[in-house]
């Protein structure tokens, strides 16, 4: 009988908690934090939008992780693989030998015909080993060029696969976003907890500094930091590190302010008072009581910001600042900014072709990179909105 009560596996009648949470089986009681986590998950799992967001995020993370496994064609990590060719429309057109001699053609085929082989692409003659991957969105289109291909040069003979960029970009984008947010949150938690708990002069000092940082528009501060110290870094690791650093410099004040606001509430709780009464040192109280209990609002803010990072990187790239060592870097934000640089020439091409052949506007070049960034950001928004509702008892319905 003793084992029965410890295991809690017997079908005892469920007890509904007073806070309106999920039924908790009578028996071994989980620790309060685990119980809170379970309660949060219960409310989160009833929010459809949050679940959709979670599913999209799990998919993106899965894509990023699956790329760690060595695959048949190892995609380059530091630059998008460039293809050669000429584009004359989705439904037709041939690859032709380019006069520059930079590209040789593997095969040509006529308008309306299916590709004779999966490898029907132009190959970089300077680097013949750069055979394009055999599996890509290209084969869904049946066109001469990959559906996911993206014109990146103004004369329109260089392409890269958006699909490959999506795969490799998943790693870079998630890595960069999570690093920024974790580093920013660590600083914010430390300073916010100290400012909120100690109060007085320390609080005043820290908060005035955050005020100063918060009054500079975020995008501009990142840009100015990158512009000012960018020339010091040229390696891939250096540039990525600089990018992360620039974002952390910009975002730590936001986290500090959020944490401080929450700490002001937390420090008045009974358990903190009890801990203080039992003689705990300030460091211990902050570390063991204040920080863990002020975590939730930061978590919501964190997840929101993760989604904004590719958007901001795209914005900076769009403005013309090259963040990464190579201009065609496989990162989602960079890709979305690259995708629209072809817009004027595509429009001009369509403008000219209205007199002759029908113009196929390369809509997929605009759609897919933007869609990736959009889906990532909106998934994160859905999830953090659900989390905010789940964490805050007043918002539960």
């Amino acid at each position, binding site marked *: 009988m003793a084992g029965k009560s410890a295991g809690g596996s017997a079908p005892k009648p469920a007890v509904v908690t007073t806070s309106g949470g999920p039924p908790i089986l009578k028996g071994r009681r989980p620790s309060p934090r685990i119980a809170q986590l379970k309660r949060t998950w219960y409310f989160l799992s009833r929010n459809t939008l949050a679940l959709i967001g979670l599913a999209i995020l799990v998919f993106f993370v899965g894509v990023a992780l699956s790329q760690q496994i060595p695959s048949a064609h190892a995609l380059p990590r530091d630059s998008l693989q460039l293809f050669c060719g000429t584009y004359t429309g989705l439904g037709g057109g041939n690859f032709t030998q380019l006069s520059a001699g930079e590209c040789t053609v593997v095969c040509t085929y006529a308008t309306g015909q299916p590709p004779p082989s999966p490898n029907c692409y132009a190959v970089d003659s300077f680097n013949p080993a750069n055979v394009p991957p055999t599996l890509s969105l290209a084969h869904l289109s049946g066109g001469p060029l990959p559906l996911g291909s993206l014109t990146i040069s103004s004369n329109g003979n260089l392409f890269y696969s958006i699909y490959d960029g999506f795969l490799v970009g998943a790693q870079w984008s998630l890595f960069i976003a999570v690093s920024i947010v974790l580093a920013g949150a660590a600083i914010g938690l430390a300073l916010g907890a100290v400012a909120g708990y100690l109060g007085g002069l320390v609080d005043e000092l820290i908060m005035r500094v955050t005020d100063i940082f918060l*009054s500079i528009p975020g995008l501009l501060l990142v840009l100015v930091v990158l512009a000012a110290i960018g020339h010091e870094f040229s390696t891939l690791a250096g540039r990525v590190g600089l990018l992360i650093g620039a974002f952390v410099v910009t975002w730590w004040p936001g986290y500090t302010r959020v944490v401080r606001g929450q700490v002001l509430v937390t420090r008045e709780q009974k358990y903190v008072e009890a801990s203080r009464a039992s003689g705990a040192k300030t460091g211990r109280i902050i570390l063991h009581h204040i920080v863990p209990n002020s975590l939730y609002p930061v978590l919501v803010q964190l997840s929101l910001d993760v989604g904004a990072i590719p958007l901001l990187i795209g914005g900076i790239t769009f403005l013309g600042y090259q963040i990464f060592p190579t201009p065609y870097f496989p990162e989602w934000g960079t890709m979305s900014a690259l995708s629209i640089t072809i817009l004027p020439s595509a429009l001009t091409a369509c403008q000219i072709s209205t007199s002759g052949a029908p113009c196929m506007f390369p809509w997929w070049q605009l759609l897919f990179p933007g869609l990736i960034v*959009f889906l990532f950001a909106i998934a994160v928004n859905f999830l953090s909105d659900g989390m905010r509702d789940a964490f805050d008892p007043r918002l539960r319905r």
Partner: protein
Amino acid sequence: MRMWIYIVRRLLLLLPVIIGVMTITFVLISTLPIGERLQSYYGPSKFGYAPTCSTTQEGCVCVTPFNGTCPNPAYVRGTSALGLNKPIYIQWLQYMKNSLTLNWGSTDHGSKASGTLLGGSTIPVTTVLSYYLPYTLELATFSLLLILALAIPLGNYSAVYRNRPLDQATRVMSFSGFALPGFLLALLLLLGATILAGQFQTICNGQSTPYFEFYGSWPPTVCYPGGVGPTWIGAYYQTSPTGFPTVDALIHHNWFLAWESVKRQILPALTIAYGSVAGILRFVRNSMLEVMNLDFIRTARSKGVSESVVVSKHAGRNSLNVTITVLGLTFAYFIGGFAIIEDVFNLKGIGLLLAYSIQPSIDFGLVFGTTLLFTIIVVTANIIVDILYAYLDPRVRLG
């Protein structure tokens, strides 16, 4: 507390923030090589800003020739004037003095801003900014009005019709507003509007010109009536007498340009508003939900006040406060988008100046100047918001 005391106190608090922001830019500027710092302050020099110059260069006069190179006069004069050969706190004091007296350096050559906008001339940064600031202010005002016009009614009615189609639509709108890249939305709007207008290309005065109906702050010169631009638009796109394009066009009774100027601000303002309304809507809706449960709403209803009046007059007064508060909090985000939007629509404001000053080579004088100016706009807007808030809610200034 009297209102003016509140305002004065609020203005005094502005000074440490401005000094702090200038300190941040000082720290960033100090990481630059001395040559770059001198160039961003004095503009290009015929000697360059290397420590030494060659005697073969005209004007490079050596007192004591040594190995054919001698101290570069531009370098020597510059470092002593900016205190670059002195300890860092002296440099900081000198920088603060220059910044507070509006000596923000000069424009450089080699950036798109100098080539495309300024005709390759070296102009003090503050002068350039004064040419381009009014356009951004006009666009910001326009966008703010649009935000107020959208956020308050949408927020109110999504609270009233909670969980009904209108509420769901605004929810989708506010989520997508966060998630859509600004440049993509702007380009899609530009593209859509151009296609709807049916004109990638317009014939103006018999000349065919690649002309976007909604691109650029003014039409191309050939499209003006008579084919000649008015004299009140200066070489650097600054207009006289006020600098605000629409206002100036109206002053000069040029109805064509006034309409063109307004028309070309509709899409940018919409793009900016879409991103900002997203953030404000949720706050307005949630505060409205709280207010609708308060006693005075019940009283108003029981007096027989019609529901629409209850929503717009009684409960709605509160949404204005919320909107203004949230606007103040998100103003930095709002104004940060201007660089991208003005770049997409090719509007002659300080955002475009910033976008053009980082490529192909960086014009540090302009980059830091525009950043400082944007920050000053944010801080000023925050003060205006605070004062407005104190005016709308007496508890703030009395408490």
